[in-house]
């Protein structure tokens, strides 16, 4: 009882998203999670099971993983998805490593508008693997700088990493970038941090992506201050499956001829290949994959389409309303549920002032890109179905108050 009290006190020192008009995204998204998701993942047979190495008594987890892989593959427009990675940022690095194995090249071109934390993870790992990282600062333009990105691709390029929608909320032209990358023998890696967007936007796999990775937290998982989250990883060419990292679940039959599922192609993994493994990943995000899969099952094609439409509708309303605040303009020509406001002053201070008024109003780009002076006045605002019209009005009027 004393422990519970202590933890409750710590909990109360946080401002929960539900208790404020809430507009923060930037790689983690607040969506309504149906109550049955949390109920089902707490069943002891899921919660307290181990990795399904004994398939005869783990068909529940295995069938769920097969369904999860199939759902992710379809959402991404890919042929094969794995059974999850730690989170979007580590999945992004694993994709870069895989593209290096497949192309046997060492140069990686990062879009300037890739989530800077993801770029940092890639840079960190590349220091040790001696991959060459060609990055850039994000351009402060209404559309992503696809031309600048394409210009940096050369014959030594193993992969091109582009976020869709990007960190400023803009939507890059994937097909153009894919064509340019493929012409130079490079793989296109598409990063998606908001899976709900793919209920409305074309799937990256249909636009020329070779590897699609992302953060799955937005469906079923909850914000949880950054973790545990859910790394998604999928590829369009099934012939490359043996170069994929992470666990894979596959269909087979048992000795009586009944359909069943097993972890398969495990010779790629650390416990067998040891120093030659495709990744050192072992434990992944099984329970988060279950939450994602249940939420996706509750939605279905109809639900994810409607959810995406509602997000976009509210984001359009918010962009239109916020642009009417004096001194504020919207940077983006296109967006899904996230866009960048230009405030004319350091947005980080504005975010703190908004928080003092009980509004969690977004992320100042100076926090994400501390080294790029030109971005400091940008405020990244995210609008999901959890925001009401009143919340949008609260943000607009609070902005009017705090802007100099």
């Amino acid at each position, binding site marked *: 009882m004393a422990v519970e009290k202590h933890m409750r006190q710590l909990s109360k020192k946080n401002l929960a998203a539900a208790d404020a008009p809430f507009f923060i995204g930037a790689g983690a998204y607040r969506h309504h999670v149906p109550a049955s998701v949390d109920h089902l993942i707490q069943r002891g047979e899921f919660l307290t099971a181990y990795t399904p190495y004994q398939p005869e008594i783990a068909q529940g987890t295995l069938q769920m993983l097969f369904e999860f892989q199939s759902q992710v593959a379809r959402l991404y427009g890919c042929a094969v998805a794995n059974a999850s990675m730690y989170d979007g940022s580590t999945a992004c690095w694993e994709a870069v490593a895989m593209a290096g194995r497949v192309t046997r090249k060492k140069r990686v071109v990062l879009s300037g508008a890739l989530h800077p934390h993801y770029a940092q993870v890639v840079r960190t790992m590349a220091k040790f693997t001696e991959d060459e990282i060609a990055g850039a600062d994000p351009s402060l333009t209404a559309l992503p700088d696809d031309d600048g990105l394409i210009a940096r691709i050369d014959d030594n390029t193993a992969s091109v990493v582009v976020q869709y929608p990007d960190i400023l909320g803009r939507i890059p032209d994937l097909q153009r970038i894919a064509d340019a990358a493929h012409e130079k023998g490079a793989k296109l890696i598409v990063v998606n941090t908001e899976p709900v967007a793919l209920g409305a936007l074309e799937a990256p796999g249909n636009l020329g992506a070779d590897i699609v990775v992302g953060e799955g937290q937005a469906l079923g998982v909850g914000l949880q201050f950054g973790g545990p989250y859910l790394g998604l990883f999928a590829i369009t060419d099934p012939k490359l499956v*043996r170069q994929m990292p992470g666990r894979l679940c596959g269909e087979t039959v048992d000795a009586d001829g009944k359909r069943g599922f097993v972890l398969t*192609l*495990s*010779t790629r993994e650390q416990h*067998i*290949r040891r120093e*030659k493994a495709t990744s050192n990943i072992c434990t992944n995000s099984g329970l988060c994959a279950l939450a994602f899969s249940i939420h996706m099952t509750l939605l279905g094609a109809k639900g994810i389409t409607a959810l995406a439409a509602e997000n976009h509708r509210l984001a359009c309303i918010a962009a239109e309303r916020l642009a009417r605040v004096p001194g504020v303009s919207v940077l983006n020509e296109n967006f899904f549920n996230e866009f960048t406001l230009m405030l004319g002053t350091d947005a980080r201070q504005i975010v703190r002032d908004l928080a003092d008024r009980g509004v969690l109003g977004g992320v100042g780009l100076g926090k994400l890109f501390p080294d790029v002076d030109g971005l400091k006045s940008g405020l990244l605002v995210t609008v999901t179905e959890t925001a009401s019209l009143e919340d949008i009005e609260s943000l607009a009027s609070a902005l009017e108050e705090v802007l100099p």
Partner: protein
Amino acid sequence: MARYFTEEHEWIEVDGETATIGITDYAQEQLGDVVFVEVPQTGADLAKGAEAAVVESVKAASDVYAPISGTVLEGNAALEADPELVNTSPDDEGWFFKLTIGDHDELEGLMNAKAYKAFCDSL
């Protein structure tokens, strides 16, 4: 034609300037059900002892080394669709790759069928 064997349980069938390489019946039995074989690219130059192919069972992955040096003429494309040929016909249809022989002297140190049988019996 002459057939040679290595201590790594590979066989080498020599026909003029061409050598065909596979793994022995003993090796496939040790591996169990073979599920995947990766053969070398045509045209690859292999030094003796270099990693040439990978053979995988459900629970294990093993490298197959070039027993002699040479240039790869052909990998066995049939293994891509039917890796189980390594189990059902290790000495024949389950061959891995063909080489042009770089140096006939390298065949000197290899075992013949009788010596290989004795070697297996000693294991």
